[in-house]
Structures are given as C-alpha cells and as structure tokens.
C-alpha cells in the first residue's frame, strides 16, 4: 500500500504507550495494532480525529503518501 502509517513515530515523540493510546482513543488494542502494522483497509474519520486529539498532531503526521516504484 502506498499510504504509510507513522503512528509508532508519533507515539515515540509523545512518549505514549499502545495501551495508553488505545484507552484514550477508545479502540481495542488489536485494532490499534492492525492500524500500526499497516494492515488496515480503511480508517474512520472519527478514529483519526480521536488519534489526532490524543497525540496532539495533524492527520498528515500520522499518515503519509509514498509513491510506489
């Protein structure tokens, strides 16, 4: 997939664990790890909204587009 998830980078920057983020965002650990590993097929705006709120960042900090060669 050409969309990359930089969730782990933001979590390191904010010094936040996966458990803490899942509690703050209100989604399960398994769903969060699906997102972190890039296995997710879609992300809801509501989830993205909560992640950005919890990590105090912009959607572009979490998601990035990389051109496939």
């Amino acid at each position, binding site marked *: 997939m050409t969309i990359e998830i930089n969730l782990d980078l933001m979590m390191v920057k904010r010094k936040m664990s996966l458990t803490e983020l899942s509690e703050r965002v209100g*989604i399960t650990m398994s*769903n*969060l790890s*699906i*997102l972190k590993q890039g*296995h*997710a*097929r*879609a*992300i*809801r705006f509501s*989830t993205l909204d909560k992640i950005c709120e919890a990590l105090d960042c912009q959607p572009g900090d979490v998601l990035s587009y990389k051109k496939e060669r």
Partner: protein
Amino acid sequence: MAKEISLKERSSARFFTGLLFVVGLTYAIAFVLSLLYFPQVRERIFHPLSLAMLIRALIDFLGHGLIKLLYLLIAYQLFRLLGLIKKGEPFNQESPKRIRRIAYYTFGMAAINVIMELESVLSIAKWGFPYWGFWLNLIGFLLKVSETVFFGLGILIIAVVLEVGVRLQQDQSLTV
C-alpha cells in the same frame, strides 16, 4: 509449501473412498442379479459385438462413470461446506471457492452429457433432417443440457455474490 493433511480431511477422504467402493459393489451385484433373474439380458450380452456398439458402450461407460465421479466430488464439496457452516465460519475465503468448484463440476456434467447425447442425436440424422424425430431429439437434448448449464450458472452467481460478501466483511473487520 506442501499442505499438511489434517485428520478430518483424511477421515473424509476415507469416507468418500468407502462410498465409491459401495457404489461400485452395488453396480456389480445389480449386474450379477440381472444376469441371474433376466435371461434376456444374458442373450443380449452375448450378441456379436460391432465396433460401433463397442464405441457406444465405451462412451456410455466412461460418461456415466465420470458423471458419478462428479456427483461424488460435489457431495464432498458440500460436506466440507457444511463443516465450515458448523464451525461458524460461513463467510470465509474457502466457501466461495468450494461453491465455485460445485458450479464447475456441474458444467463438467453438462459437457459430458453433450458428448454422450450428441452421438444419439447424430445417429438419427442419417434418416434426414426433415424427419420430425430428429428435431424432437435435438430439442430434448438442448433442453437437457441447458437445464444443467443454467443450474451451474445459478451456483456460479451464488459463489460470486458470496465472494463479494466475504470481501465486504473483511473490509468491515479491517476498518479501524
């Protein structure tokens, strides 16, 4: 990577081999009994064989054998499908594949019927095309084949719809 055969698969394979054996045995017993109780069959067996009769008999034997084999394969696929439903996983990637296979086996049955019946349709053609029996036979043949083909198409449509359903379910479960 070689797929490991599970105990369940081995037992179902054993069940279907046994079933095949029982079907064969039933045929053999029916043949022997018909020889014993219907002497006219005995007379017909020892008729002088012509090459055309031999070819016809061979086509019939192979065709019917293949159709029975396809029936068994369909039964096997249904057996595995029921297993999936019993496990509570009807919407997985395996079930549309199995339904698709059932559709292909049905098409195979139609193809075998075409080969088997074509000979009898063509044998009437020697009396001339205006002969009403030819057209009657041809219409009967087309109806018989189209019945199986339509049935196969129906099953194929179910498989395609189920495939879309499985994809939608996966999309839903991978939406965070």
